[in-house]
């Protein structure tokens, strides 16, 4: 989806369900959200997936996009 991911929109990785993985550094230009900015539904999905796993959200409606960082008990990256 974004050039940040280094993937073209048609690449299989983009159509695969999103996942989260812990990160220690925040890449320059990344969008960062605090957990409290997310909807109840997305919070639930993120808390379930964290620190690493499949994120059960619809990226077309959720405010989270691939490449975003979320500040939770770890910093996690949506990919």
């Amino acid at each position, binding site marked *: 989806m974004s050039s940040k991911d280094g993937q073209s929109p048609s690449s299989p990785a983009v159509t695969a369900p999103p996942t989260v993985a812990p990160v220690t550094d*925040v890449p*320059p230009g990344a969008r960062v959200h*605090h957990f409290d*900015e997310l909807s109840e*539904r997305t919070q*639930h999905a993120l*808390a379930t997936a964290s620190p690493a796993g499949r994120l059960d959200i619809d990226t077309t409606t959720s405010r989270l996009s691939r490449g975003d960082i979320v*500040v939770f*008990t770890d910093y996690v990256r949506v990919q």
Partner: protein
Amino acid sequence: MREIAIHINPEYKRRVMSQSYVIVGDGIAGASAAETLREEEPDADITIITDEGEPLYNRILIKEFAKGKLPEAPISIHDESWYDDRDVDLELNTLVTDIDPEGHTITAHDGTEYDYDKLLLAIGGTPTQLPVENSDAEGIHHFWTFQDARDIKEHIEGADNSVVIGAGLLGIDLAAITAAQEVEGKYLMRGKAWWRYALSEEGAEIIHEALRERNVEPVFDSGVDHFEVDDDDRVTTAVDPNGDRYDADFVGIAIGLNFNTEILGGTDIEYDNGIYTDEFMRTNHDDIFAAGDITEFHDLILGDRAQNGAWGSAKEQGTIAAKNMVDYGSEEFRWVSSYSITHFDFPFLSFGHPTLGDDHVEAKYSDTEWRRLAIKDGKIVGGVLIGDLSPQTKYKKLMREQVDVSGQKEILVKQDFQLDDLEGAAAEQ
């Protein structure tokens, strides 16, 4: 020359002439109102005024900046072009000092007057100062703005030892900042537990232990009687009411907020701790609305006046206020607020009004898992979840729908609680 008077029906005038909206405060409540107003009224004049020197930033991420974990860039939410692109006039560094509800004008510190058809007050609060000797010394910090976070970061990075005062949700951010910056510290609390109005000692002990692991020592039945300073008026020591002394070259204070109601003095806008609004975020003046931390709103769920202090709630109130400024009565604010802590290995979330209630139920499941629900008139009004946030949605649903859980409170804290564990009417929800 003869003048001809033309009488225009006010309702017609309202519809054909563009409205002028003025918003005071560019926090999340004011900024989300501006965004909604522009969506709802493409031709309206919109002005947003703030006494801060920068446009909207993410107030709930500034702690991560002060910890040294995030750079400045991702904390900014809007740059000035955001306002230009939406044709919203942004006035930075402008303190509003007066409101004239009859004349429909507000006045800024430099004497500039702004006329409005509809006004939104999204003015939040200011940290309360500790009324003790030397509390304005160098090295003593309060925490609300991005500038506060920059000052805290700069100072804590060179500090040797710290004291934090204020056993609540903002105090723990300060304690977490000292921990992340590896500055050993004491966290002075008045009672025997952190956030003692929402957590029992058993629940709070999970937080105390996590602090100790990070070299921040909770000190109970304490507080501050006065500070000692050196010849340069820099803080050196906090002395508590028991006479115990704690050396600290960094002090963080978070004992509460004073809501910014001074500008209401001399008006008949109703307020107490915050500004009174109805569920449409309107004050007792038809053309004046309020949103965010500053409101004491009519809470439809609680059936009473309430005040929230959380990002999501302030954002939603800004949106709802804007809709009702355009079309009064179009959407009510009905919301269960929540606030989480992300500093530890386990998650923490409080929701609703966890310090209220005439009854409660709690349970501990492990060293890092605990739950407490506050109950009023047989209904959940708030709670705290530590370790496992998965029941959040269920509890919030019960609260939102005001389900009577009388006689079933132990079922609510079964570790794997499901909504259909509840009997009768409650189970049908």
